[in-house]
């Protein structure tokens, strides 16, 4: 039987020093054994490297920033759909755009025939940083104790309960470790000035960071999971190198999360494993991480599996992966004709 050929649109082509996952996702799709692909790149800026990687991306269109609103985005995707014979599937890869794509889920499938495989809005909201402690309590996953505060006056009451050190976190970004109330107040002021309120005070957990890349099928089944530890980290905290781990307990925790929440779509879970061997969930990203090609390297092409699930194909869950598979990230200077930059800048497509 001949393989189907899917047209798949992918965002996050910014394979730069703090990379978006788009290129890794595309590499997984390109080596898929069950289908062929035409890749449509969706870019926000004219200098996202993926636009110029013609061996990976067949055609790129600029799309509006999420701040422009869903109607504008939908209108642009309608135009793109009209230029292409078909678009079977779309992979949003940025945190900031997920809200808009989740909201557009029904319209994209209903009106343009574009499928996606994403968490529900409830799942998306529930794992937000300020809600994560509640999320953990509800789904029986250990999350460091955290409390939202709106005023520096509340710090004392919280630290009395939690003790020191304590992590002072912004709503979206930034985290600092404070060892006394004065420091905590200082960080509160600094972070709230930049990222606004509330501020999260979180119990400090010491240990090793371990991550899991996986997919849930929306019915409580874990369809694939590869645990990884970062071996080397860039100054931006991004993985430079990592290795797949033999960690059955971590897989079980992941399975429980997916079973209890009926998680649908890809995810990256970040944990801290303490010296006593206890796992604390720090963050859930509702998308594939930039290191997701490691899943392909260790025998689970999760991107391929996800497309097949969304296409209604019968997909068996991955049960195995190659332990000890490493990835080492490298950067590369692409030579680009300025004509190409001109084209994407003035016409919005290349």
């Amino acid at each position: 039987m001949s393989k189907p050929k899917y047209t798949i649109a992918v965002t996050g082509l910014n394979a730069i020093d703090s990379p978006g996952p788009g290129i890794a996702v595309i590499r997984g799709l390109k080596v898929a054994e069950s289908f062929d692909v035409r890749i449509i790149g969706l870019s926000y800026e004219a200098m996202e490297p993926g636009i110029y990687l013609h061996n990976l991306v067949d055609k790129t269109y600029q799309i509006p920033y999420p701040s422009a609103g869903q109607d504008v985005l939908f209108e642009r995707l309608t135009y793109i759909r009209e230029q292409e014979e078909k678009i079977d599937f779309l992979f949003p890869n940025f945190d900031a755009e997920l809200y808009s794509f989740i909201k557009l889920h029904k319209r994209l499938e209903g009106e343009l025939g574009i499928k996606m495989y994403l968490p529900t809005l409830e799942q998306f909201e529930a794992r937000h940083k300020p809600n994560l402690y509640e999320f953990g309590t509800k789904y029986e996953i250990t999350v460091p104790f955290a409390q939202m505060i709106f005023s520096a006056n509340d710090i004392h009451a919280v630290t009395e309960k939690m003790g020191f050190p304590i992590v002072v976190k912004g709503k979206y970004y930034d985290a600092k470790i404070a060892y006394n109330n004065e420091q905590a107040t200082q960080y509160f002021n600094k972070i709230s000035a930049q990222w606004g309120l509330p501020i999260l005070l979180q119990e400090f957990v010491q240990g090793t960071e371990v991550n899991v890349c996986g997919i849930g099928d929306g019915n409580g089944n874990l369809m694939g999971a590869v645990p990884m530890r970062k071996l080397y980290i860039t100054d931006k905290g991004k993985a430079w190198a990592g290795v797949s781990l033999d960690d059955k307990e971590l897989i079980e925790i992941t399975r429980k999360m997916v079973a209890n929440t009926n998680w649908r779509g890809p995810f990256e879970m970040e944990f801290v494993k303490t010296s006593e061997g206890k796992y604390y969930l720090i963050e859930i990203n509702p998308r594939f991480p930039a290191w997701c090609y490691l899943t392909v390297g260790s025998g689970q092409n999760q991107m391929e599996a996800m497309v097949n699930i969304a296409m209604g194909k019968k997909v068996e869950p991955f049960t195995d992966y190659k332990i000890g598979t490493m990835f080492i990230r490298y950067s590369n200077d692409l030579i680009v004709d300025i004509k190409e930059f001109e084209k994407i800048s003035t016409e919005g497509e290349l």
Partner: protein
Amino acid sequence: MEKKLYERPIIRPLNTGLMNKYGNRTEYMPVTHIEGASVKEMLKKYGSPLFVFSERQIRENIRSAKRAFETRYPKVQFAWSYKTNYLNGICSIFHQEGSWAEVVSRMEYDKALHNGVSGDKILFNGPDKTDADLREAIKNNSPIHIDHLDELYRLTEIATELNVKPRVAIRVNMDVGVYPMWDRFGFNYESGQAWDAINKIMATGKLNLIGLHTHIGTYMLSPNAYGVAGYKMADLAIGIQQKFNTTIQYIDMGGGFASKNTLKGSYLKGTDIVPEVAEYAEAICTSLLNAGFRNNDLPTLFLETGRALIDDAGFLLGTVIANKRLSDGRKATILDIGVNILFTSFWYDHKISPAQEFGSHTEDTVLYGPLCMNIDVVRENVTLPPMNAGDNIVIHHVGAYDITQSMQFISLRPAVVIVDKMANPHLLKRSETLEDMQRNELVPEHLKHNKN
């Protein structure tokens, strides 16, 4: 050869990233008509700037809000929040649609009476009620929402003196998990102040406690907060029933539903993140229905929604006065619309559309108002097609608060019209004249001799 349409020459740097060509196209769709009435013709007839309301939109908003609540709860009553927009024509539409009046001052109270609302359908809220106001409200049998203990004592004294039992509710504030907590109005739930006030009312027996009122905040993006508030209000009502065997007739959940405007600093557009009225309705009605009222005791649900019912029905039309280049190279456009009539520009990034056709190129611009004051900034930064002096623009979502909070300052305030279903504009308010403005001014005799 026919001449081509001229558009001011513009050049913009490309490699600065951020905004791309496909950024905000829809925002730039020209808006040439409002509900079928021509923007240019209305400006010609009524002058620029001009407020324009859509009657169809207002009726649709109130009807769909009523539908959202009435399909979920058996007894619902809306009361139009006068302070949001108290143009008589606007209030009349809401009263035609069955809304009562919710007022927070004697001026608003008298306005509601003037608009033909019967006294027993005017909810009298707010911290500012004089003895005379209270007497008037008692005379008209209006529900008085008590804000503080001083008011409670005054009202009790007046009731004793008049030997009547006024109908009252108490305003309750509470922690619903949102910040900032509105604890300046009413009696606090968690600290027991609310129960203290209730006990005082029941102990004297001079006031007829018929309702409970709360208003948890403004531009609330979380329907859940209303759910929490609903449970706490129901808890009080059921407690009163058990303790005093008195049935609370209504629970007033106030207003605060967000409109589709975009708050400054918000990354996503208001239209994308603001919950539908149905989501607020679901949270509120579920909490009340599940609270454990015996079936006949289910209180009437009052809603004082203002902003969400009127904001998107209001437009402000204006004209470009001039373009200039600032010293740092930024483009600036001066409009005849100032912050004195667009007070909400202090917290919203309003959507702005040109009112005529244009090309596909855009530029970043600061939009200034006409006032000779540095604070007069309508938008700090907006991407618009190049516009020439004399071109027109339409500012969206200005129906709430812009009229009631407008200031007479430096220039005269514009006219307000409403477009009916047949696309005909009607005046709701004439533009101000110097005579209007000076009507109450006096010049003492000894100041009348001018040397010039």
